[in-house]
């Protein structure tokens, strides 16, 4: 293969390089992903002088190619000659940091942050910091937004003069003309505050924070809420009241629902950041207001936080606060007009029982659970059922079973198959909590009924459910309660139901063990190999392959092998195929 003067080890690399400019995006993408291979072959010198200049100018490409390139360059330091030359990677990443696609810009910034750590302090000031300044004063907002994410990585490692410049640049970006840049600055405010000296946090950051939190655009204001968490964590407790709380109070009552939503969404973090005293005096009333907000989205976000908020309350008077301030609001939310609010509440409300203890749960929470179990919206009921374990620990599930059963039955028969699917998935959990007796008495029929549902996804989930039940209740229980019913379906006139028998056997054989499988299931499967529907027959072949490992070798040789051989000469192509496959997998040939 080697030519007269050619070097065939170069060939694969040559292909990769050529494909950097192939018309097919997939090939270009492939080449970019193997950029390190190309760089290795070229050596550090040519990578720096030829490959990187070429890549710097390829920002015309598709987003996915650029994204891959931005990512690759973050790991390229050794390939350009180590930390000494890492600054060579800045030009291509700088141009990637100005493209219009946010994902690409973000990835370029991520890579820049990564390689900033590999710069020596001198290089950082000579190469990296000027790049940050260029981006920060760029004509287009794309470059200025990218700059926002780079201040915090170079600030700790530069001289105090440069630090002052960086602070100034950040200040400028916080009052940029375009909301995009102000948003980027607001979202990096917390991160930047963390690397700043405490005095500057108090003097610089607080004023920027206050300004962004009262920006004319609510899309900027809502990002200041996030910064609020980081800033509050940095400040000593005694400064919080004067420096942070006025802004936080204002945000919790903002005219724009999106800002209030953000406060609700970040409530647990805020609560931890400001500490127990302020929580008691300020956040409790604020949380009450959010739970009663006029906008459903805000109420839903707050409802989601009910449990976490209560958990994190200072323990000394937690119960009192919940009972007098929070619970009345929660009671109202149970009958909210908006189903998203109710369902958000239903997903956390059960958690309150562990916090409030047995007596309060029975007296105050149980009526709410029962009301939600009867809610018109299936999602609300499902959310209650899916969290039953919390209540089980405190008061035992029996308290609920009277209402639980009708709720489960109703969901099990819901007209929407996705609702039925959701309740099936909770069955093993319910079975475990309710115990085998209750299950046999009330729920077993439901589980069997799902096996003949007219939607395949339900039948499939029902089979899987049976397997989990057997794992829970044991093989003996299976033999007495479900195996007979499953095997009975083998004679059903509907071939779909006959196939369900096979699917159940596939799922159950392992959990039931060798004895049940060989004595009870295998004869039925073998008998079904004479079914007139080809789909059933090839599923017999598939089932035999599946249960084969559970059977002993005697049964395999004397019973399974002849049947599979017969199926292997079936008139139907698929039956033949699966029979042959089973023979070879089970090594019966």
């Amino acid at each position, binding site marked *: *293969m*080697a*030519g*007269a*003067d*050619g*070097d*065939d080890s*170069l*060939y694969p*690399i*040559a*292909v990769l*390089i*050529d494909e*950097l*400019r192939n018309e097919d995006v997939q090939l270009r993408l492939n080449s970019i992903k193997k950029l390190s291979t190309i760089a290795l*072959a*070229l050596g550090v010198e*040519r990578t720096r002088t*030829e*490959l990187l*200049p*070429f890549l710097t*100018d*390829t920002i*015309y490409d598709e987003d996915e190619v650029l994204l891959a390139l931005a990512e690759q360059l973050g790991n390229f330091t050794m390939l350009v000659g180590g930390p000494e030359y890492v600054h060579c990677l800045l030009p291509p990443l700088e141009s990637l940091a*100005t*493209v*219009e*696609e*946010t994902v690409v810009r973000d990835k370029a910034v991520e890579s820049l942050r990564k390689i900033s750590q590999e710069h020596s302090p001198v290089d950082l000031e000579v190469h990296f910091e000027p790049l940050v300044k260029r981006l920060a004063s760029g004509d*287009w*907002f*794309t*470059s200025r937004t990218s700059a926002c994410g780079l201040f915090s990585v170079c600030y700790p490692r530069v001289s105090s003069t440069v630090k002052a410049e960086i602070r100034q640049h950040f200040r400028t970006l916080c009052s940029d003309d*375009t*909301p*995009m840049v102000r*948003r980027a600055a607001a979202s990096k405010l917390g991160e930047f505050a963390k690397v700043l000296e405490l005095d500057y946090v108090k003097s610089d950051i607080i004023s920027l924070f206050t300004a962004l939190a009262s920006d*004319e*655009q*609510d*899309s900027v204001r809502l990002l200041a809420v996030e910064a609020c968490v980081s800033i509050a964590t940095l400040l000593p407790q005694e400064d919080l009241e004067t420096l942070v709380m006025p802004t936080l109070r204002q945000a919790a009552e*903002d*005219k*724009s*629902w*999106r800002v209030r939503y953000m406060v609700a969404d970040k409530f647990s973090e805020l609560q931890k950041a400001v500490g127990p005293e302020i929580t008691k005096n300020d956040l409790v009333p604020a949380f009450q207001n959010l739970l009663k907000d*006029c*906008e*459903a*989205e805000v109420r839903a976000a707050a409802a989601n936080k009910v449990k976490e908020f209560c958990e994190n309350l200072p323990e000394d008077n937690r119960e009192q606060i919940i009972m007098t301030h929070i619970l009345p609001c929660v009671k109202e939310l149970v009958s909210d007009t908006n189903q998203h609010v109710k369902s958000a509440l239903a997903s956390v409300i059960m958690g309150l029982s562990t916090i409030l203890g047995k007596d309060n749960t029975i007296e105050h929470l149980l009526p709410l659970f029962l009301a939600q179990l009867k809610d018109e919206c299936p999602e609300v009921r499902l959310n209650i059922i899916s969290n039953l374990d919390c209540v089980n620990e405190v008061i035992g599930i029996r308290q609920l079973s009277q209402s639980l059963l009708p709720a489960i039955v109703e969901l099990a028969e819901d007209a929407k198959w996705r609702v039925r699917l959701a309740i099936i998935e909770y069955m093993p959990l319910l079975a475990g909590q309710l115990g085998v007796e209750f299950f046999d008495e009330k729920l077993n029929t439901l589980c069997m009924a799902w096996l003949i549902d007219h939607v395949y996804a339900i039948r499939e989930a029902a089979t899987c459910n049976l397997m989990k039940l057997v794992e829970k209740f044991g093989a003996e229980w299976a033999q007495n309660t479900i195996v007979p019913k499953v095997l009975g379906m083998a004679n059903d006139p509907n071939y779909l139901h006959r196939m369900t028998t096979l699917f159940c056997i596939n799922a159950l054989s392992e959990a039931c063990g060798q004895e049940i499988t060989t004595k009870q299931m295998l004869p039925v499967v073998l008998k079904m190999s004479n079914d007139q529907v080809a789909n059933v027959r090839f599923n017999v072949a598939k089932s035999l392959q599946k249960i084969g490992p559970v059977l002993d070798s005697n049964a395999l040789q004397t019973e399974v092998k002849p049947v599979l051989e017969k199926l292997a000469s079936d008139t139907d192509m698929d039956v033949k195929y699966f029979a042959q496959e089973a023979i070879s997998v089970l090594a019966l040939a």
Partner: protein
Amino acid sequence: MAGPGGDMQWCFSQVKGAIDDDVAEADIISTVEFNHTGELLATGDKGGRVVIFQQEIENKSQPQFRSEYNVYSTFQSHEPEFDYLKSLEIEEKINKIRWLPQKNAAQFLLSTNDKTIKLWKISERDRRPEGYNLKEEDGRYKDPNTITSLRVPVLIPMDLMVEASPRRVFANAHTYHINSISVNSDNETYLSADDLRINLWHLEITDRSFNIVDIKPANMEELTEVITAAEFHPHQCNTFVYSSSKGTIRLCDMRVSALCDKHSKLFEEPEDPSNRSFFSEIISSISDVKFSHNGRYMMTRDYLSVKIWDLNMENRPVETYQVHEYLRSKLCSLYENDCIFDKFECCWNGNDSVVMTGSYNNFFRMFDRGHRRDVTLEASRENSKPMQVLKPRKVCAGGKRKKDEISVDSLDFNKKILHTAWHPQDNIIAVATTNNLYIFQDKPLTERTGLEGDTGTTMSDAANTTSTDNNGDSGLNGSWVGWEMNRGAAWLGPVSLHSQPASGPAPPSGGRRRPWWGG
């Protein structure tokens, strides 16, 4: 800035589009829009194409030629489609184009037909890669055995190439026909409005949008009103307005609630009972709504008038301008020929002192708000000599027709100007007649020849008519001769808007467009 009817004169600059009278359906211009700097001008047409013109760099030695716009990029934005589930044809016609604020060296615009909005990137490329390892530049393969060293491609200069590439497709969110798109001042969201709903999109997310307004009644037989236009406030990211077929405008505040079905303000003028007629509701339907650049006012266009509303006053407009009041007596025949359903658009000049809108007979109107003066101008081939000053036109509503006046009965209702655009800073306007795009500009100072007489009547004299005693077309003598010598070919043989013929089949000519919500 000077007023249009006062001391400023408009003169012809360019005309784009085919010269022959035989109009291909696909060539009919359906929207015109300047970008934020005015450097680019985009048109969309019924054939689904977008044509972008770029303003030439000012020529210092010949200041009068400052505003030549030349074709920059042409691309097929939308193709005709068929919705098999609903058995509906989806036309490729571009309903609206909106430019995004510039975010990097490339330009971005949104274009929409009835159903699908697309985000386009228009970018320049002036370098191309050169050098392969395994083949020659012309494509011939090299013998792989002869490779002795690796070659990294280099970028070499090439002729400037302008590329338009589709970046995002926002589809499947509208059951009815999209009439408006508007980019939010937060630079990350935009709205799209159809007859009954308004959706809010994120510019980077195509798989979901939020429905913020829904006026569809539970029972469609109770439908009395449709959304006709919608726009975001230029500075307040939480505020948008939408207009309706009943002549009302609703202002919504997105801060109040996630769903904006409840408006914060309702702008409506009580109907004048004396003007009540069978056509009242049809002619009060608003065809366009535009915020002023400063965000204080908004302008609405209905069939016969333009109204300016102060956002702080809901019960009546602060200014009302009659566009073609002489048609009030013709409404019956305009109903017969469907013209009464024409959707005229309107636009503001750069500093909000003048508004412009179209009319019939290729006339367009300008209203100077400060000086209360108005003027009627005509876009026509006859007036398309370089730098020729446009002569104000006057329509005679009845009575004795004076010299230079046009009788209402001789107006050509097939020649309508629905789409106009005003350069965001300069006095340059783009006016779309059926399949031609006219660009006019104010007369350069160096060309002034002492004609700054009174060329318009004051509004208080006759709000619904315009007149001029001035013979406006003198004074350009001589000056355009030189122009013709230099640039004559540019206007004598206007290039077609499109370098290629329409690709898809011409859509069937439209049937009657009765408003389907009324009896």
